[in-house]
């Protein structure tokens, strides 16, 4: 799994490629620890190339959201499998996820 980030008007836009599963979630966790600092104003995760996300990945996102506090976390270009996982977990009400 690879992650590429660019800053756009103070918001970190990270494009993730691959799957966020029990094995690769650690990579995402590390990336967040390093790149989500107090300076950024928000985080957008582009899921266009994300095949799917499983429960470990969701935990990482939850921790990320907590770290961001009031700053926005947006997930874009989620495919239907990703949407289904968010829906089943009830997290669609908490995370802003766009198709």
């Amino acid at each position: 799994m690879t992650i590429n980030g660019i800053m756009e008007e103070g918001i970190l836009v990270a494009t993730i490629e691959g799957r966020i599963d029990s094995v690769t979630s650690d990579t995402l966790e590390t990336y967040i620890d390093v790149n989500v600092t107090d300076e950024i104003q928000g985080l957008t995760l582009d899921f266009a190339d994300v095949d799917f996300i499983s429960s470990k990945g969701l935990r990482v996102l939850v921790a990320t959201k907590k770290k961001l506090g009031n700053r926005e976390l947006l997930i874009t270009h989620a495919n239907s499998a990703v949407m289904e996982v968010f829906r089943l977990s009830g997290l669609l009400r908490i995370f802003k996820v766009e198709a």
Partner: protein
Amino acid sequence: MADREKSKLNSDSSAQSNSSQKDSVQNRKVLLDLISDNEVRSNCIASKCLLGITLLFGILGLAALFGLYDVGDRVIAIDFVIVSLLGVFIYIHARLLQFKHRGLKYLVLIGILLVTSVTHFLFPQNAIAIFYLPLLVSTSYYDRKLSAIVYILSWLLYTANMALNVILEQTSSVVAQYHAYMEVTMWKQPKFVLLYYFIPQTAMFLITAAIGAGLSLRGKNLIQAQADMYAKAVAAETEIATAKKIQRGSLPATYYKDPDGRYEVSAFLRPVKEIGGDFYGYFRMGDDVVFMIGDVSDKGLPAAMFMMQSKNTIKTLVQNSSSLQEAITRANTVLLDDNKSGMFVTLWIGILNVKTGVGQYVNCGHLPPLLKHADGTVEAIECEPDLFLGILEDVAPEAHVFRLDAGDQLLLFTDGLTDAENETKEQFGSAALRGALAESKANTAHLCENLIERIDVFAGKSTQFDDMTALAISFNEIEPSHRASLEVPAVSASIEQIMNGCNDLLQSVACPQNARRLVDVMMDEVCANIVGYAYKGTPEDGTMRVELEAGANFFKAEFIDHGVAFDPLDGERPVTDAVAIATSEDDQLDSLDDISEGGLGIYFIRSLSDDCKYRYENHENHFTVTKIW
């Protein structure tokens, strides 16, 4: 009002009056039939009556001819015999006509009137009572007009006789001699005759005629009522016959073979009354075949109506829902509404992919179907049944995975089969049905008939008391599934290998992308769960076997290891955690932390799989997940 609307209204009302015209024509015909039946019977009585009287004359005449009786003159005796011969002739003629001729009643009544009248003339002191004979006979026709004519004629003949006797006493010496011989002197005093015979006898006659008229009217009314009841019964029968046609027409054929030869279905339905509450159904939906059986709580017409609604609702919803579970949940809601009579229906419905034989079923309070394998063994497809449909809101039935192999025969049936009783009130029973199925050599086309025959033999002379329905389905050909087997160490590093094997297999069966992703999530959760715990606590890492199977519409994985008994599904109930996340207001994200490691994973395994099972056997953990798309 627009002209078109007006003319439609007119045609509607004329159609209605046409049908009620037809009804009243039908009713009139029944009434006329009943009246003519009565007339025939009355003709028979009247003819016999006439015969009787004339024979009496004949006997007297013969007796006179043989010198045993004195009628005054030989000529008179011969006349008597002639009259009796006429009577016999009329009777034989009427009999040959089977008493049916239109004019017969007039002939016979006139005959009776004449003979009565002559008798009265000869024996007038016997009073008007003699005329009660034609009165009674005519009353039996229940025809007031006819009776009126006969009553009037009778009285006129009576009056004529009385007048004749008075007049002829004075003018005819023969008659005067006859009166003297009979020792009747009243005819010399007309006033006496008038006051003490004519007036009282007329009064009696009137009273009797009135009674006769009343009887006649009562008889007519009875016949009318009989005709009405008959008409109603016929109408009701016709309606039921039509309803039966509609109901049978709404069910698919009792035998069907798929044009590609992949599967066969045969069905049997025998309601107790003309129409009933049992139903079966089957239809094709893309690559799947859907088949079902149901039993409405009642019998007869009300059950049939609810049955039609249930069947159509279920079929439509199955064709328009994204899953079997959703379809049946919605069906329950629909059947609850507009169901004031509180009826409910059991249902067993299965949907199988025609290529792979794998699919799901839902059981709402119905008897588990029997599955007969090619080797002859029979097992029941058991599960925890969900509630019948139409009783409670919020019934969310569970869909279970099942599969049929080539050569398997699946039998769905209603309790009319197992509850069938014989003369000693013994029930056939499910064990006997299983036995009958195991022994049966019938192919699918004749299986249902064959089993019903067995049950009929058991039941003997006792009558069927519940609707009996059965449906059999079998697959002749199943596409072989693709399989793969891996043996890997139970460590995280193996997950990638397992996932690759899984995806290769899914690709080989052309699994659609969305389904493939969800299978991946499901497998990821299972792997993370099992791999993390399989050999926990043991000194060395063990290996585990993963058996994969996939087909056009399903994926199945079985994980086998020799570690300590560990059920991956045994953990905190994460469903409530996920719901808590969704519905709580503050600190919702903290609750995710509270879920034990793997808790959310278990939830996903249950939600994403269509079936997941664990068992511990021969010191081995076996965990199986199945997903269908």
